[in-house]
C-alpha cells in the first residue's frame, strides 16, 4: 500500500517499544552465541550432523507445508463451495484439530502403533496438526471473493478451472501463503512431535544440546541456524505473496458464490473429510479415553480443577497482552508500509520460529534478575505474548488492511485526526478479525509447554504441564483426564474460530481472516 502518510508519533513509539520487547530472545541468542567464540561456533556448525539436520528440517517444513496446503485448501473448497452434506459439521471437525496439541496426537498414534516413528510419521502428524491454519485462511478468502467477479469471469467464457486460477487463486494467495509461512515456522519450532517421533530437526538438536551437555552457547549457535532458516522462509514468502489485494466490486456487502453440485461424489468428499477428522481428532480422543478407562485412574478432581484454572488464566492474560502488543504493529503493517513496518514484521516472524526452550531460557536469564517478577503470572503472560506475537500481529494486520482506505479519508475529511480515525473507524470494523487473532493466540497458549515449564510460578501447574509430567513417567492413563480436559477447554476458542458466521453478524464475516 502507498506510504506517504506520516506515521503518528504515538504509534511509532509504541511499535518500537513492543519490537524491543519482542527482540529480547533474539538478543539473548546472539549474546550466547557470541560468548561461545568463533572457533567453538564453527566447530558446532561444521559437524557432519549439521548437514543432515538441515536436510531433515527443510524437507520436513516443505513436505508439511505441501500436505497441509492440500488438506487445508481442499477442505475449505469442499466446505465453502460445494453441496457437501453438513458443511458446518466438517468445518468444526476440521478446525477442532487445533485443540489437540501435537505431543498428544503423536503419543496417541504411538500408543496405537508402537512402531510409529520417523520422518514420514512426522510429516503425517504435523500436516494434520497444521492443516486447520490453512483451512481457516483459505475459507476466509473464499468467503471474501465476490460472486459477481466469478460470474462475470464465467460469462466471458472462462472454464471453472480458469476461474479458479485467474480469479480465485490470485485473491486467496496472500492469505494462504501467509498461513503456509506460519505452518513452516511452526514446523521449525515444534518440539513435542519431532522428539517423540525421533526426527532430528534443529529444534530437537537445540533441545538435546541444552539437556545433555548443559552447553548453552553451542545450543545458541545451532538455534541461530534456525533463525537464518526462518529468515529465508519469511523472505521467500514476502516475495511470493505478491501484492494482490482482494477487491470488492463495491462498498456494499459481498454475495457468496453458488455451491457446485458434486452429485454422488459428495459422499466421497464427505468420507475424505471424515478420514482426516478421524486421523487428527478421532484417534487421539479414542486413545485418551481407552487408556483412561483401562487404568481406571483415580481422578484427582481438585488437581484437575486447579490445572484448568491455571491454564485458562495464564492463556487468557497471555492472549490479551499479545493483542495489546500487536495493535501498534498490526496497524503499522497494514497502513504504513515503510521500512519500520517491514522490519517489525520480519523481526516478529523470526521470533516465531524460535523453539520455546530458547525463549524460555532467554526470559529465565532476564527474569531471574527481576526479583519478584520472576516466575510470576505476569512474566508467563509476557512470554506467551512474545511467543505468539506473530499470530496476533498477522490477524490484526489483515483485518485492518480489509478496512477500505477511503473510510480513513472520509473520517479525516470530517475533521478526525489519525488517532481518532483509528479509534472510531478502524478498530470497530477490524474487531472481528482481531477477535479471531485473540482466539488463535489463546488456543495456542493453552497448549504451550517449554516456556511454561521454566516461567510458570512454582506450584502453578497448567494442564499441559500435568500431561507432560504424567507422560514422562509413562503414566499415560493418569495423563488422560488432563489431556481430555485440555482438548475440551481448547475446543471452546477453536469452535468460536470455526463459526464466525454464526456467532457474529454477516457483515463481520467479510473481515474474518487469519
Amino acid at each position, binding site marked *: 500500500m502507498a506510504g506517504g502518510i506520516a506515521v503518528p508519533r504515538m504509534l511509532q513509539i509504541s511499535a518500537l517499544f513492543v519490537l524491543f520487547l519482542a527482540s529480547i530472545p533474539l538478543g539473548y541468542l546472539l549474546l550466547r552465541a557470541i560468548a561461545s567464540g568463533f572457533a567453538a561456533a564453527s566447530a558446532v556448525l561444521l*559437524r557432519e*550432523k549439521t548437514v543432515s539436520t538441515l536436510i531433515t528440517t527443510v524437507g520436513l517444513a516443505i513436505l508439511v507445508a505441501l500436505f497441509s496446503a492440500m488438506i487445508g485448501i481442499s477442505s475449505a473448497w469442499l466446505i465453502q463451495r460445494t453441496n457437501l452434506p453438513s458443511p458446518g459439521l466438517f468445518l468444526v471437525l476440521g478446525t477442532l484439530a487445533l485443540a489437540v496439541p501435537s505431543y498428544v496426537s503423536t503419543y496417541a498414534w*504411538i500408543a496405537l502403533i*508402537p*512402531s510409529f516413528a520417523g520422518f514420514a510419521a512426522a510429516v503425517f502428524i504435523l500436516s494434520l496438526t497444521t492443516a486447520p491454519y490453512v483451512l481457516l485462511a483459505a475459507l476466509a478468502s473464499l468467503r471474501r471473493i465476490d460472486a459477481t467477479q466469478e460470474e462475470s469471469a464465467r460469462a466471458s467464457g472462462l472454464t471453472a478451472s480458469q476461474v479458479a486460477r485467474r480469479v480465485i487463486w490470485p485473491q486467496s494467495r496472500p492469505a494462504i501463503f501467509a498461513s503456509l509461512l506460519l505452518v513452516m515456522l511452526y514446523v521449525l519450532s515444534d518440539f513435542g512431535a519431532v*522428539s*517423540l517421533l*525421533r526426527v*532430528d530437526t534443529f529444534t530437537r538438536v537445540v533441545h*538435546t544440546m*541444552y*539437556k*545433555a*551437555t*548443559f*552447553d*548453552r552457547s553451542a545450543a545458541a549457535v545451532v538455534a541461530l541456524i534456525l533463525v537464518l532458516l526462518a529468515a529465508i522462509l519469511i523472505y521467500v514468502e514476502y516475495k511470493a505473496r505478491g501484492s494482490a489485494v482482494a477487491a470488492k466490486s463495491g462498498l456494499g456487502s459481498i454475495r457468496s458464490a453458488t455451491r457446485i453440485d458434486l452429485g454422488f461424489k459428495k459422499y466421497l468428499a464427505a468420507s475424505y473429510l471424515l478420514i482426516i477428522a478421524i486421523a487428527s481428532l478421532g484417534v487421539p480422543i479414542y486413545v485418551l479415553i481407552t487408556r483412561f478407562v*483401562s*487404568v*481406571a485412574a483415580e481422578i484427582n478432581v481438585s488437581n484437575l480443577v486447579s490445572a484448568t484454572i491455571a491454564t485458562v488464566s495464564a492463556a487468557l492474560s497471555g492472549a490479551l497482552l499479545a493483542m495489546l502488543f500487536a495493535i501498534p504493529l498490526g496497524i503499522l503493517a497494514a497502513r504504513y508500509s515503510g521500512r519500520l513496518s517491514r522490519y517489525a514484521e520480519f523481526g516478529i516472524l523470526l521470533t516465531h520460529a524460535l523453539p520455546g*526452550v530458547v525463549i524460555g*531460557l532467554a526470559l*529465565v*536469564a532476564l527474569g*531471574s*534478575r527481576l*526479583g*519478584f517478577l*520472576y*516466575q510470576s503470572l505476569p512474566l508467563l503472560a509476557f512470554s506467551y505474548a512474545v511467543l505468539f506475537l506473530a499470530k496476533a500481529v498477522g490477524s490484526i494486520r489483515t483485518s485492518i488492511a480489509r478496512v477500505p482506505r477511503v473510510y480513513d479519508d472520509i473520517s479525516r475529511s470530517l475533521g478526525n485526526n489519525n488517532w481518532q480515525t483509528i479509534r472510531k473507524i478502524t478498530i470497530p470494523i477490524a474487531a472481528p478479525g482481531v477477535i479471531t487473532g485473540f482466539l488463535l493466540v489463546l488456543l495456542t497458549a493453552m497448549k504451550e509447554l517449554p516456556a511454561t*515449564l*521454566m516461567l510458570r510460578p*512454582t*506450584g502453578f*501447574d497448567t494442564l499441559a504441564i500435568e500431561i507432560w*509430567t*504424567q507422560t*514422562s*513417567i*509413562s*503414566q*499415560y*492413563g*493418569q495423563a488422560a483426564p488432563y489431556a481430555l480436559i485440555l482438548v475440551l477447554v481448547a475446543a471452546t476458542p477453536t469452535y468460536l474460530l470455526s463459526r464466525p458466521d454464526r456467532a457474529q453478524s454477516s457483515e463481520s464475516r467479510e473481515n474474518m481472516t487469519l
Partner: protein
Amino acid sequence: MAALILSAAACGSENNQRVSEGESLSGTELTVYSGRSEEFIGPFFADFESATGINLNVRYGDSAELAAQLLEEGNNSPADIFISQDAGSLGAVAESGMLTTLDAEILNLAPTEYQAKSGAWVGLTARARVFAYDPVKVTELPDSIDDLLDPKWNGKIGIAPTNASFQAFVTALRQLRGEVAAESWLAGIAANNPVAYEKNSMIVEAINAGEIELGLVNHYYIYEVAEALGGEINVKNGFFAVGDPGNLINVSGAGILNTARNSAGAAELIKYLLSNESQNRFVSDTNEYSILLEVPSPQGLPTFADIGTPVVDLDALKDVRLTQEMLVRVGLL
C-alpha cells in the same frame, strides 16, 4: 526491596541452623527444584511438611532441564535445594560452583561411593541398569553387553539414546573400557539396527507389544509400565554377569544451593529423605534401591552385592558431551 527483606529473614534463620529438630523452621518457606516426578516424591514432601511445619514450594521438571535453568539463573536462583533424577545433572550444577558443601552430618548418612567427592551432593536412591526382555521370545539370556552385538539381535533391541540414563551408561562404559573400546561397542550395537525410543518406558511398552525383544533400561520401568497399563505385562528384568558395565548403578540425589535462603530447611529435607523410614518407603512404593546398605532390596530384586555393579565414579557422569559426540559418530544420535 522484597528480596532484601527476604534475604534478611533468611540470614536470621541460618543462624538457627544447628537446631536439629527443625522446630524453629516451622512456618518457613523452602523452594525445591525437583527433577523427580510429583507422582513418586510428592507424598514424601507432603509428610515432611506436616512433620516440620516447613512449607515447600516445589517446582517439578526434567532433571537436566532444571539444571539448565539453574545455570541460567545463576546467583539469582530462587531455589534452595535441587533434587535430581541422575548424578549427571547434579554434577553439572556442582561444577559451576552453585552447590554448597554439605554438612558432614548429612554426608555421613550415605556411603561415599554414592555422593560427590567434593561433598556438593548426596545420593538419595539408587537404580540399576538392566535389560528388560520378553520372556517368551528370549530364552537364552545375554551374559554381557557384548552378547548383544551378536547378529541374532539384529533389529530386536530397543535403546533410548537421547535419554540421560542411557547416556550415563555410555559415559560409564567409556570410563570402564576406554574411549576406543566404548566406541567400538556402540558401533557394533548401531550395526545391529537397534530401535531407538525417546523414553525408557516406551521401550518396555514396545517389548510388551511384541515390537522388540529386549531393551536397555532402568530396573523400575517394568513396574511403572505395568501399573500404567493396568496389570501384568509380558516383560521381565534381567541382569548381566557380575561386574558387567551393563549393570551400572546410578543414583538420584540432592544438593543445596549456595544462594539458598533456607539452607537449614534444605538440610532437614535431605536428612528426612535419607532417614530409614523414607528409604524403606522408597523401596516399597517406587521399587527403587535404598542408598543405605542396611535397607533391603525391592521385592524380587537381587541385592547390590549380587548384581555386581562395576566401579564407576558417579561424579564423572556429568561429562556427557564426549558421549554425545560418540553417539553422533556411530549414528545413534
